[in-house]
């Protein structure tokens, strides 16, 4: 006796990102859900607080979406020590930087998931972090009187993640292991949107329930090659030439006041393609196929 129909959580990238709004706190996982990031830029969301690193952070800043970053690492890669648009915006005070580091960030995220106002952490004691980020309070622990940081709960409104597969009910499985921060973000965030390479039948999930890494994503979006130009573990490797192209135009814009190349890049890859499929056509199928991981 089956009554009713179980609700699908499968959405298009536009439907999924429509859940977001200006001013929200958005967390970006690793591997990077680049297709969702491009959709955020396409939808011209503004004044976001973002938890992100590397290219996804830099591109969101370049796209004008960011007011504040919760920042632990913003390296550019490929011999560029700092992501160019992040660096320029931070040096000019155009974005607020909530300075932290990985252990502090995960502590704040864990506090949120656990419904706690804070969690203590030791890494960062003795550094400048509590001076330049006054939200990090030095406390004496109530058991031994040791000096620790009290990290306040960090509560993203939405986590945007990339994974290998999911069923339409929001059961997600990361093949080859989830990224280092993804599960912290998912547990802390109010909502969770996961882009995947492939939608699999519910039966495939139930064949290995212990491999499910996220049990109930609010939305899943089928976006093959959706992490491009980054990697998707077990599916394809990063497109280093594409990343170098971005870094070249971003560096020209940020350090030499030559914004034309970056604007052209944003138009070509973020604003003009109406859908992720249109983006992939611009990148080109042969290029994508050449990135296959084996």
């Amino acid at each position, binding site marked *: 006796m089956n009554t*009713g129909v*179980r*609700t699908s959580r499968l959405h298009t990238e536009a439907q999924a990102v429509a859940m977001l709004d200006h001013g929200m706190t958005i967390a970006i996982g690793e591997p990077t859900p680049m297709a969702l990031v491009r959709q955020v830029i396409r939808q011209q969301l503004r004044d976001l607080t973002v938890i992100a690193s590397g290219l996804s952070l830099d591109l969101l800043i370049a796209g004008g979406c960011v007011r504040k970053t919760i920042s632990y690492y913003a390296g550019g890669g490929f011999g560029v020590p700092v992501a160019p648009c992040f660096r320029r915006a931070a040096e000019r005070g155009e974005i607020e930087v909530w300075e932290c580091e990985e252990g502090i960030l995960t502590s704040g995220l864990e506090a949120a998931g*656990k*419904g706690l106002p804070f969690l203590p952490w030791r890494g960062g004691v003795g550094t400048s972090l509590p001076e330049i980020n006054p939200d990090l309070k030095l406390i004496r622990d109530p058991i031994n009187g040791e000096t620790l940081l009290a990290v306040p709960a960090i509560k993203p409104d939405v986590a945007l993640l990339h994974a290998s597969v999911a069923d339409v009910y929001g059961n997600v499985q990361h093949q080859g292991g989830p990224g280092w921060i993804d599960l912290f973000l998912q547990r802390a965030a109010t909502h969770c949107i996961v882009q995947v390479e492939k939608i699999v039948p519910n039966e495939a*999930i139930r064949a290995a*329930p212990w491999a*499910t890494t996220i049990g109930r994503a609010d939305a899943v979006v089928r976006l093959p090659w959706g992490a491009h130009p980054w990697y998707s573990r077990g599916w394809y490797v990063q497109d280093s030439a594409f990343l170098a192209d971005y870094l070249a135009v971003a560096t020209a814009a940020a350090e030499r006041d030559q914004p034309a190349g970056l604007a052209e890049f944003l138009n070509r890859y973020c604003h003009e393609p109406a859908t992720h499929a249109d983006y992939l056509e611009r990148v080109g199928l042969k290029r994508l196929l050449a990135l296959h991981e084996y």
Partner: protein
Amino acid sequence: MTPCCSTAELLACFLARDLNDGEELQVGIALPIPEAAVRLAQLTHGPNMELIFLGARMNVHHLDHLPMPAFGWDSRVVRWAESFSDRGHRFDQVKDWHRRVFFVGGLQVDPHGNTNLIGVGQDFRRLKFRGPGSVGTPTLTTHVGRYYIVLNTHTPRIFVPRCDFISTVGWGNGGADARTQLGLPGGGPKYCITPLCIMDFTPEEKRLRLVSLHPGVTLAQVQAQTGFELVIPAQVPTTAWPTLEDLHVLRTQVDVAGALRG
């Protein structure tokens, strides 16, 4: 008139109809009535319900029979799941438990629905009866959207004016703000069900109040078996029999072995 079902079946059907589609329903061990109720609810009106047993989260709405061994602890439960929360993170997402429903038993229950699984006696170091311990009930009842107190017996030794120890906070010392005063985000206990009756809590004082008497049970009987004064409303109906449809699903798809009929 012959009763159409056992009291345990009556209660399972009552609970099932109080559960809403889309909810997460977590049941611990040794609670056969809730265990049957959540399965029944999913089959009758819960295509988006998620059942959680022993950390395994499942939705088996599409199956004609639930492939779970009934009413006991069985390691195989994870095989029918969609996810298994026990990757060392059972409590790392309690902030989302507002959509979760839970069930607790108890050695003692007080007028505000506080319960005790720790033990009976005045001196913790020399208990008269050492209970099993709180399991995860303090954390679960702190955070879940609502929970049900489910008791297999109804006696003055269970319903006491004051618990010797409190393992689960219901409505503390009473009052609708009792839980917010303590900083407990969950919604607290909704119903307390026993072999004699169904009870809830008054909206203002949050005192245990009679809702309905099971068929054949008298008010005097309940009062005699309760160690404090229950709130008795002007009208006390008889607990409604389950629908024949619910009973049919319960007996043919959930409790095929008849554990609740015994």
